[in-house]
Every structure is written in structure tokens, then in C-alpha cells.
């Protein structure tokens, strides 16, 4: 057991080591102007500096909070809407083109309108993140729910289950995996949208930090910001996967 844990750890670590090595390699190869690529150790030093003197943690907190709230609100609405669309075919015929229309719009293109209607405050950023998470989540939900086989419902009926019992004891357990997938997809999309949402005159936040840094051509700060976003997204995804595997022990998986 210990051996396999160590092996999996090394296997997971290897690509990171490789990426850093490649980074150094590109910088030292001379093909690219070295001033355009801060070295990994310079970025690490900048990270410590930002952490200790510039309050990087406030930016991390501000961004994480926005993503978290945006995704929660988006999924809170996407779950019942996606469920209805997946469950009732007429609802899907009715709403499908509309949803695909809005889903195709990149949130960044909506920013001018969001500023007009919601101002430049926190609400505006949440609206953008909500928009992105909702449409990502609703698709996953309704695709998943529409594939639930009627067999289990029939079985429950023949055992004597009433409408409410079927909903609570059959449909909800079958929906949980799709809710978790929707959450994961929405989290990914929300982080991707974060920088766009913080384009709206944000004071703090990783996206704002990157924006400000680009104004003054502070490449190392940009690198710190990008790596922070990636790391937080990765951690959130890992937590969610941990929760999923706890809730979905019953699922059959090709690879365990």
C-alpha cells in the first residue's frame, strides 16, 4: 500500500517538475528574450513578497469568495431548472434553443451591458460568474437527468412506492452524481471567467492583480496571479472529487 501511494505521488509530481524544467530550459535556451520570461525562482520570490507585503491573501480570498458565491448561486438555480428540462420533454423542446443561444455568448462580451445594468460593484462580478456557472451547470444537469432509465422507477412502483417516495428514494439518489458533475464543470468555467469579471474595476482579486500588473508590465506578478488561480482551482476540484467519491461509493468505475 505504502509503495503504491508513494508511486502515485511521484507520478502526480513528475509533470510539475517537468514543467518547471521546461520553463528554465526556455529561459536559458536564448530563443526568447530573457526579460520576457521571469525565472521560476524569481516568480517564487515575488510570490513571497506579494504574500508578506502586498496582501496577496486578500486577493486570493476576494477571488475565491466570488467564484464560490457565483458557482453556488448558479448551481442552486441550474439544478432545479436542469432537472425540469431533463425530466419533461416538452420543457426541453420549449427551452433548449434559448439555453443554447445564451450559453454560446462569452461572458466577456456581456461585460459592457452588465456595467450598464448592474454597475461596477461586487454584484456585477457575481452576475458574470453566475451567468457562466448557470449555463455550464444546467446543460450537465439536463443531459444527465434525461438519461435516467425508467426501469428503476418502474421497479419502485411495483414495490408500492408513491409519487413522493419515488422522487425522494429513487430520483434524488440518481440525480446526485449529475449535481456533483455540474458543480465541477461550473467551478472550472467560473475560474476561467474570473479574470473577465474582475475586469470590471475590481480593487482586489487575482484577476484585478493581473490586470494591474499588465498595465505596468510586471510579468512576474502576472505569473504569480496565473499560478495562484490554477492552484486554487486545482484544490477546489480535489475537494469536490473527494466529496464525490464519498457520496458515490456505489458507482461503478472502469478504473478504481
Amino acid at each position: 500500500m505504502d509503495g503504491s501511494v508513494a508511486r502515485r505521488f511521484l507520478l502526480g509530481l513528475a509533470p510539475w517538475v517537468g514543467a518547471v524544467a521546461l520553463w528554465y530550459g526556455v529561459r536559458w535556451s536564448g530563443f526568447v528574450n530573457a526579460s520576457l520570461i521571469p525565472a521560476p525562482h524569481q516568480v517564487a520570490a515575488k510570490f513571497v513578497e506579494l504574500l508578506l507585503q502586498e496582501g496577496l491573501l486578500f486577493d486570493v480570498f476576494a477571488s475565491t469568495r466570488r467564484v464560490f458565491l457565483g458557482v453556488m448561486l448558479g448551481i442552486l438555480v441550474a439544478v432545479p431548472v436542469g432537472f425540469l428540462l431533463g425530466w419533461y420533454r416538452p420543457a426541453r423542446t420549449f427551452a433548449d434553443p434559448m439555453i443554447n443561444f445564451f450559453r454560446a455568448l462569452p461572458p466577456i462580451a456581456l461585460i459592457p451591458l452588465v456595467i450598464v445594468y448592474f454597475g461596477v460593484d461586487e454584484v456585477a462580478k457575481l452576475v458574470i460568474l453566475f451567468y457562466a456557472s448557470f449555463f455550464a451547470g444546467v446543460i450537465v444537469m439536463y443531459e444527465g437527468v434525461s438519461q435516467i432509465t425508467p426501469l428503476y422507477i418502474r421497479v419502485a412502483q411495483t414495490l408500492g412506492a408513491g409519487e413522493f417516495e419515488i422522487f425522494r428514494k429513487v430520483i434524488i439518489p440518481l440525480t446526485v452524481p449529475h449535481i456533483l458533475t455540474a458543480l465541477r464543470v461550473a467551478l472550472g468555467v467560473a475560474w476561467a471567467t474570473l479574470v473577465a469579471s474582475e475586469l470590471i474595476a475590481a480593487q482586489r482579486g487575482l484577476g484585478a492583480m493581473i490586470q494591474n500588473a499588465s498595465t505596468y508590465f510586471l510579468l512576474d506578478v502576472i505569473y504569480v496571479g496565473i499560478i495562484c488561480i490554477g492552484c486554487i482551482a486545482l484544490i477546489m476540484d480535489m475537494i469536490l472529487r473527494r466529496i464525490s467519491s464519498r457520496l458515490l461509493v456505489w458507482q461503478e468505475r472502469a478504473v478504481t
Partner: protein
Amino acid sequence: MSTASGIHRARFDHVSLEFATPKGQLRVVEDVSYDINDGDFIAVIGPSGCGKTTMMSMLAGFQKPTSGKVMFDGHPVAGPGPERGVIFQEYGVFPWLTVKDNIAFGLKLQANHVPVAERDQICEHYLALMGLSDFTNSYPKHLSGGMRQRLAIARAYAVKPQFLLMDEPFGALDAQTRANMQNLLLNVLATEGKTVMLITHSVEEAIYLASRIVVVTARPARIKQIIDVPFTYPRDESLQERPEFGELRSHIRELVMSEYRAQQAQLRPASFSE
């Protein structure tokens, strides 16, 4: 068991069923009439895809006949209910519940009024009966096909339906497990006395288990012949060695094969036969 009391529990009364398909109306069941009496073990046999399952599905309450009536206990079937237990061809064990919780599922439903104190006892009984005691807290993903089927059967038996509808329940099992499950079914019926409608494509299974065999035609399913099986219960596997068993098997096999040939002929492209 074979002493059917003569009180009919289920009745197919000139039942037909059609589907609308893009190519027009598809007639699946045509003018089927027969009674299932209390204590009967009816086996319905016919070529695959002939509409046997549709017949059962109407009695279970999942489909309504286009014309005619399907009656249960004197009333037209309006929907599914716990007094008609169904064992599905695809098992349908709930993957998100453990083996024990699968069996307990029906016992916890309001319609069945099973006191909390009795639930555990009933679960234990069927776990032991089906040889699943070692897997009480396992999830179905850890079970073999045969074990899943036994679980589906245990779950259906647990709510004690007086009437069992079984759709090729042993079709996917290996010969050994299949024989075990057939004997187990005979034992349960001997102790609990149920009425059964079994859909099967195995002639041996039909003769070995049933008190009456309904042979149906290729689609649309019509009744070709209803045969009383002359053997008394309890039965054991030595029955299958008896010459009468062999004769009956040849007779029924010939009926089924002629329908199978008819079905193959139907499947040939119409343009060639015209």
C-alpha cells in the same frame, strides 16, 4: 399447488395492443384471452420479440391495451401496484443501495405497512434464502450477474406479493445457477403459495416450473395453444428425465419452432416476396 382453486385473479379479455410507428400502426398483441387462476403457474412462451413481455407489461400496469380489458382481482388494471410483484429481465437492482437496503426498500414504503421490528427479520430471511448473507452491506457493483438477479428476486419476494410477474428472470444466468434458481422458486412457491406468470423462451423451464403453458405466435402475439402440464407438485429435477417430459418438450418445441420460422419469413424484405 396444481390444484388451482378456480377463482381467477387475472384475466386477459380480447386484449389487443398497437403502437404508432413511423411506418404505421404496429400490432404487437392481437385478441388474446385467458384467465390466470389463484395458485396457477402460467408460463408464456413464444419466439423472441413476439410481444410476450408486452402482455406481462399490461398486467403489471405499465402499458394499456388498445382494445379489450386486462383485469386483476375483478378490476381493470390501472397502474402498477405492490400486490403484483415484478421481476424484470434487466434485474433493476438499485445501484446506490447496499444489498440489504435493496431488500428493505419495499419494506420501508408506506403502502406495505411493515412494522420496523419485522423489517430486519424479513431481510435476514431472504438474504439467507438467496445466499447473499456474506454480501449484506456490499453494493451491487460487487455482485455477479447471478447474485444481482437473486437480489432482484429477494427484493420482490420480500414485500410478499401474492402474484408474481417474471420476465425471463433466469435468462442471463449460467446453466448451474439457473437450475438452482428454478428449484428455489419451486420451494418458495411450495411454502408461500403464490400465483405466477412467467415469460420465458426456454421450453424446459416452462414445463419444469409451470402448471399451464401459453404458447404464443410470432408478432402480433396471438394464442397458439394453451397446454396443461400434467405433472404434480412438488417437482424435482428427476422430472426432466421422464419420457412424458420429453414428449411434451418435443410437442411444444415444434409449436415454438414453427412460429420462429414464421417470424423469420416476416423479417424477409417485402419487395422480394411480392
